[in-house]
């Protein structure tokens, strides 16, 4: 009886759909022209280079802040990355823990600002630099376990796969697209799943033994692809 309603309802649906698309355009650019994330202004311009940068060999006492870093391990501050799916932000307590004993920089404007937050017992309102859609569940812990703990890669290298060369930055800026296609470029590659010499790495080798064929190079290092099940990230 109401069969004639079908087409009008379809049209209304299409109209709503198209108009919602139009209303959402233009969208903010996710990636800037140079393929980086947007420049983010932070409440305190945190110098990653000073903390994680390489030491200046000519300056063994590390006295000149402009010329060298402190080579602090990423995980010293970003301590949650190896413990949880989300990396979190270091608590303010962590900054103060060191800086309350570093008198030499105590009167620098950024540190003064930092202590203002501490004295007021207020969290610093950092802006998010790396964000993923809510339907993606990237697991930091898993990646650190694999690359840092099991394969003993340098921390900065492992973090750098996604976060870029942070030791060269002041305020962090997104370096990679962090799109699914980009993730897949890595997960599709053959990676060593045993340590050099063929020693299986914990449960990794077991998991990869299900993946055939397993590539093997001259040094007898077994290689396989990263996990590629949808549910690994889309839970």
């Amino acid at each position, binding site marked *: 009886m109401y069969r004639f*309603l079908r087409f009008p309802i379809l049209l209304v649906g299409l109209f709503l*759909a198209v108009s919602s698309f139009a209303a959402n355009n233009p969208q903010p650019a996710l990636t800037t022209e140079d393929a980086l994330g947007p420049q983010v202004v932070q409440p305190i311009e945190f110098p990653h280079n000073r903390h994680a940068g390489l030491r200046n060999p000519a300056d063994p006492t590390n006295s000149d802040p402009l010329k060298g870093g402190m080579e602090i391990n990423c995980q010293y501050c970003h301590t*949650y990355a190896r413990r*949880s799916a989300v990396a979190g932000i270091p608590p303010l307590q962590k900054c103060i823990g060191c800086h309350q004993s570093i008198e030499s920089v105590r009167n620098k404007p950024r540190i003064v600002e930092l202590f203002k937050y501490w004295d007021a017992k207020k969290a610093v309102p*950092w802006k998010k630099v790396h964000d993923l*859609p809510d339907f993606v569940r990237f697991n930091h812990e898993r990646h650190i376990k694999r690359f840092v703990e099991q394969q003993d890669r340098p921390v900065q290298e492992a973090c750098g796969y996604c976060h870029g060369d942070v030791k060269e930055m002041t305020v962090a800026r997104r370096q990679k697209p962090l799109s699914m296609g980009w993730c897949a470029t890595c997960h599709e590659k053959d990676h060593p799943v045993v340590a050099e010499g063929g020693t299986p790495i914990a449960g990794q080798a077991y998991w990869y033994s299900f993946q055939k064929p397993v590539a093997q190079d001259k040094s007898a290092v077994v290689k396989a692809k990263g996990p590629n099940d949808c549910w690994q990230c889309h839970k």
Partner: protein
Amino acid sequence: MIDSGFDRRDFLKVLGWSGAAVALSGCGNTSIEDGKETVVSYVEANDYMIPGIGVYFNSTCAQCDAGCSINGRVREGRVLKLEGNPDSAINKGKLCALGQAGVQHHYNPDRVREPLLRNGSKGETITWEKAYALIAEKLSGVQGEEIAFLSGGVSGHLKALLGNYLESLGTKNHFVYEAVAPGVTRAANVKAYGVDMPRYRFDKAQVVLSFGADFLGSWVSPVHFSQQYAQFRKGVNGQRGVLIQVESKMTLTGANADRWLAVKPGTEGVLALGIINALGMATGDVAELVKGYDKARVSHETGVSPGQIDKIAALLKLRSPSLVLAGSAAEGYAHGSQNAAAINLLNQVLGNVGKTIEAPVSVPFPQMAPSKGNTAALKLLNDGLAAGKYKVLFNFAANPVFTAPGAFKFKDHLSKAGFKVAFAHYLDETALQADLVLPLDSALEDWGTQVPEYMTEGAQINIQQPLMERLHANTRGMGDILLNLIKQKKADEYKGFEDYYAYLRGAMLQNKGALGGGGTDDDTFWNTTLTQGIVKLAGTAGALSAHVGAAGLTLPAHAAADEQYPLHLIPGVTANLRDGRHTNQPWLQESPDPLTTIVWDSWVEVHPKKATELGIVEGDIVEVTSKTGSVKAQVYLFPGIHPEAISIPVGRGHDAMGRYARGYGVNPFQIMDAVFERETGELAMHETRVNIKKTGQRVLVVKDEGSAGALQMGRKIAARVSTDQVDLSKEV
């Protein structure tokens, strides 16, 4: 009923196409917020606080008084999910839907956030200092008997503190009011067993005969009873327990019963005496009493066939021990005490007392035992208010403007109180009438102790502790407010306690030995207590006094039907909404009623036969009129109700409280007559008589069940056959 040619197949086609179109247009819309969203870190973090990893704290559910212990998952400082604490003997790790919705009480957008002082019809935000000063000012020069404090059930240290405060004010007017409480059953139990709530052992019973006790849904301690019920169903020695439910309106428990018997409203006691008669086990004055209750008479009065009475009697004789319960349906009449007494008598005749009905244990601190009360207390207050006796009225954890029967005219009488202070979570109907509204912390932000009325194995004191920081800066815990108020009177005595936490800790540590912490140092004891969330005590077991006696038991003769109001109104107490204090939690509105599957609205249950007689179909809006008032609601045809009764669920029909409560459904309390139980003076909730009239309007009933009343649209999805066509003796 909507009858359109737009069938399911067409609907799916259209849905598919429009869905696809929306999905396409949605491409490119992501939730990525680089550089815009703020990520707030901790200022200081404990070692166990890791973003993305939950930590669990034990506390106590405050959604009802059963006292289930909860275990809340907290992540990034926010409580996300509540489950039961496995260490509690009451709920053993389980939690009902009402308890699960506790997070929605905490995060509710309609919570009161600031102290509000009446200015005309508006509430003006004031500071706490000003609020306390105002209370002190209003109390000065006021006699003790001119002050009244109305509260819901309170227990634990809060009760002790409240008692001390009222004492300091020189008032004895503490009215404890729970709208839905087994007040009459308690009184009848005291007579029959010497205690107001014995311990029921469903797990030991082989037959449970329940006269309207909805122990799986909303009666006393449903989570605990559900677990005992599971054991009862598994059975002793492999023999599965049999549940027989006798009531005029099917409850959740009735729907689970092996045999469900509809009795004429109010004749539960007659049936109980009839069963005693049929058993033939009674002696002495009991035998004398039940002599007149032969099957023909009982069957005529109750509407239960003689065959059924024989079957029940045979089953009760065959299987022992059994358990007979008197629930809200039996007690809700003017002769409710007599009904309950007759039912308790049946227990005694069957020899169940001491077997499935045991002496309860109680906490060895009587000042912490829960205060109980029902509508009799409210009536007393209402009379006092009507006489203009009270200059200052406090209200805590009760919403009488919503739950008082319409015949009380409570709202009008309330306006005669001089200065009304409401301690409130929401601006509910009662808080809206107050002059000063003080916002309370949610149960997940507050400190406290709770002593459940119904204890199980051993006694326990439940600990309530904050699972997270206050959501709103200006709410306060009830304990903190009381402490501040009592300091106005007894500053010296209470100056050592900075806040309620300090009071609570101090009080617990003072009794460390009695609480099982003898020999440990204070911090260890306190931390263990908070970690466990429960203090288990040996408790003191009382003794049941089982004196079989029929003295004073007289059931009224069957009343003639009222011409003008021929139907009984049965207020339905649902497992989710109870008395309606949590209606503003949308999960509870959204979860379908277990029997009718209706959501977000009230309904009038009418028996299909009665409906045919009156020319009513499902979805008709009818006007339900009593002597007191009338409400309009949609009809749901329900075979689980006696044809001489209709039922409207309570809990909905708020005209305040919040966005999820206001304007949904109707409030049957409004049309309840002021008929009281003769012995206890409690409101006889089932005594209201009504008539129903069609208004001519008709709506589509919103329910999860198929819109055509669970019809299978001609397809045999689940084949079925009616029970009268089955010979059960051949089936098993």
